[in-house]
């Protein structure tokens, strides 16, 4: 046999080589087997990470790999290697605020949002908890957005799996076991690359025209009325910022108004002597940066032809009081005209309209309302909103709390009636007369199913501008919808104000592993060693006898003696 082997050495080398390569291939394949077999994988949404003028805000880290812990914690406990799981339902805001403000390190923070209630009956009376929850979410969001947090923060929705893990973690925490005990614990892992800065984030404005009817002798340009709504959002979790109320409601109202007037303008007999300009602007949370760029792109003649502009902002959940926000004093003739037009209709609808005047401070870069961008260019403009006071920067921009549940479709319906009627009376010169053009059950009635369909779409589409590409489906959808009702639809791409920069990785998958600690594996190794030694001794004893076993341990010294 040995001779045969020697004889075949020439061929054997090649065979051996091929065997080695096959073995190497097998090893490479085996090493590539992915280890994605977690007990639980959960979709998580990362806290936004952004800079304003170079100052960092939000969560600065994305990767997570620590043991899970849950409150209550012993005071002074070191949580720098613990992922704190916190259900928002029972959130301890003071604890969290203390931790964030005093900059104490955590391994990570996992906030559990209450389960999405999708099958809520429309119009059902909202319970007290909802309001409380909303306030907590608003407060939490502002806290997280305005802090610089050096650890990963994720949001997840509560479900049975996560609640089971949380209960387990609580139990082991309560019994006083440290996370490294033999029974192990849960390890939360998010493997995600370091977040990268979004290069040149774009904002996309969409505009559409309904041109008015020029008389025969009219050589002058027709006056224009603009209806504007900003459609993008900003929130603690960009992947969850759907902004149903701020400003999905405004967008829906704008689309419906465009639809109603497109029916009027399609017939030359009912075509008004005003151009209507519809603008869906982006960059709303960032001082209405998109609106500014959109207005700047107008030529001087167009800008001067704008009679007035109505901006729609957060109109989805008011009861009977709506506010007109203006930058010029209410005594101003143009403002008065708009206000009276709106409040006449409001009286007929049985709601009240208040007016709020807020002067513009040109030196202050903060633009609280969309109409202020118009006013800065000396265009008469108002904002219609349910908010009675100007929001701060990045406040009321469609965050976590702003979901479909918080909306009242009737409010949007009323707003559309209000704006459409007052516009129509202005266009057709029926001021002060009680004529209902968009009356219910007429062919020009506001369509509730159109409203709720668009609200549904907007309420499940996060629209944080830096994370929307130029050809994002929602932008295409808005463009298509606007081009169905208006003409000369134009999409304008701009870059966001350089003061703001954003970082990607807005969503990830959280793997929850139930792990044993190192101590357990050490113990196991010891036990196995003992077992194998016992087995060895037993086998030697039974097959060779005690003398051999003893000789095994004696042999080395006896050799030395021989050598000597």
């Amino acid at each position, binding site marked *: 046999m040995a001779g045969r082997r020697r004889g075949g050495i020439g061929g054997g080398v090649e065979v051996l080589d091929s065997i080695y390569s096959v073995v190497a291939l097998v090893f490479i394949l*085996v090493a590539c*087997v992915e*280890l994605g*077999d*977690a*007990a639980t994988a959960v979709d998580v949404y990362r806290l936004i990470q952004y800079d304003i003028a170079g100052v960092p805000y939000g969560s600065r880290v994305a990767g997570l790999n620590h043991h899970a812990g849950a409150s209550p914690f012993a005071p002074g406990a070191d949580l720098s290697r613990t992922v704190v799981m916190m259900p928002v339902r029972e959130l301890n805001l003071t604890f969290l605020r203390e931790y964030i403000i005093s900059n104490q390190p955590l391994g990570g923070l996992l906030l559990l949002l209450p389960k999405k209630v999708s099958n809520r009956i429309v119009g059902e009376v909202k319970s007290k908890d909802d309001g409380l929850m909303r306030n907590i979410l608003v407060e939490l969001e502002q806290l997280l957005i305005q802090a610089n947090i050096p650890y990963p923060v994720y949001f997840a929705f509560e479900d049975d799996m996560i609640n089971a893990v949380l209960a387990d973690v609580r139990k082991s925490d309560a019994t006083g076991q440290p996370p490294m005990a033999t029974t*192990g614990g849960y*390890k939360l*892992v998010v493997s995600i690359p370091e977040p990268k800065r979004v290069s040149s984030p774009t904002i996309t404005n969409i505009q559409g025209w309904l041109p008015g009817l020029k008389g025969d002798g009219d050589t002058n340009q027709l006056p224009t009325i603009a209806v504007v709504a900003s459609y993008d959002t900003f929130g603690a979790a960009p992947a969850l910022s759907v902004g149903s109320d701020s400003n999905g409601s405004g967008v829906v109202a704008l689309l419906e108004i465009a639809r109603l007037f497109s029916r009027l303008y399609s017939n030359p007999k009912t075509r008004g002597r005003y151009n209507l300009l519809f603008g869906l602007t982006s960059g709303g949370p960032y001082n209405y940066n998109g609106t500014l760029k959109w207005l700047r792109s107008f030529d001087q003649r167009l800008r001067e032809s704008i009679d007035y502009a109505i901006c729609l902002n957060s109109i989805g959940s008011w009861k009977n009081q709506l506010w007109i926000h203006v930058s010029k004093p209410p005594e101003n003739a143009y403002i008065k005209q708009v206000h009276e037009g709106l409040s006449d209709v409001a009286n007929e609808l049985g709601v009240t309209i208040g007016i709020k005047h807020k002067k513009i401070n040109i030196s202050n870069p903060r633009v609280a309302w969309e109409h202020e961008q118009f006013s800065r260019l000396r265009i008469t403009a108002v904002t219609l909103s349910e908010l009675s006071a100007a929001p701060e920067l990045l406040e009321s921009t469609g965050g976590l709390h702003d979901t479909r549940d918080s909306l009242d479709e009737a409010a949007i319906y009323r707003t559309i009636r209000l704006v459409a009627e007052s516009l129509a009376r202005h266009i057709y010169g029926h001021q002060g007369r009680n004529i209902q053009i968009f009356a219910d059950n007429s062919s020009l009635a506001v369509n509730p199913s159109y409203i709720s369909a668009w609200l549904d779409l907007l309420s499940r589409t996060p629209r944080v501008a830096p994370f929307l590409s130029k050809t994002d489906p929602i932008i295409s959808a808005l463009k298509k919808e606007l081009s169905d009702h208006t003409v000369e639809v134009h999409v304008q791409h701009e870059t966001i104000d350089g003061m703001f920069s954003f970082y990607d990785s807005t969503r990830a998958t959280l*793997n929850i*592993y*139930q*792990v*044993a*600690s*190192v101590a*357990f*594996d050490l113990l*196991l*190794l010891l036990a*196995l060693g003992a077992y*194998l030694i016992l*087995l*060895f*001794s037993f*086998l*030697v004893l039974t*097959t*060779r006898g005690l003398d051999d076993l003893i000789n095994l341990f004696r042999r080395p010294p006896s050799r030395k003696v021989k050598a000597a």
Partner: protein
Amino acid sequence: MTVFHFFNCAILTFGPHAVYYSATPLSEYDTIGTSVKAAAVYLGTALVKLVCLATFLNVSENDCFDPYQELLKVLINFIDVAGLYFALTQLTHRNISQTHKFQAVGLGWAFADSVLHRLVPLWVGARGLEFTWEYIYQGLEANANLVLNLSLAALGSLMWLRKNKPRTLIPIIYACAGVLTTMPSITSYLRRAMGWQTSKLVGFELFSSLMMAFISWQLFSACQRPA
């Protein structure tokens, strides 16, 4: 830490084979060649078994216990016995005593079985972060399997290699060999029809294999005595 766990489980799964080889006189007589040949025969047998399983068995969608299918499985398991027979009688072993031959064959057989059935799941599963008892149980099962295979090889050598054995013992030997061969089906029955927990099942496997080993040993030493 997780590679550590993999290492532990691998020790538990494959360690006993190595210990058995080095502790018993097998290492002194250098019977590794016999073991390797037995492992090769095991590979061939496993292939034949796979082909038979694929040909004669339906794939059951639900994990229920079908007596007819299980009976077929038992029959197919007897191919193992044929393989062992081939390994024990037909292969030209170097001139080693029967006592060592059956141990070497059984060891090679069990080791090949462990490598084929347990190495890949171990590599894929035990390195993950998630902790389960599964791989520790699997290692214990490998231990029980080693003992079972050694017993079966011992009985096989009694049946086919030893000519002058006490007549009264012959039916007992055959019955024990039959029990050993149906052992995988018995555990599968307990797991699926009775719904036993893995821990209980592994305990049963260890216990039963030790019992069968004891019986086989008694039979072997009874035959060893000059009649």
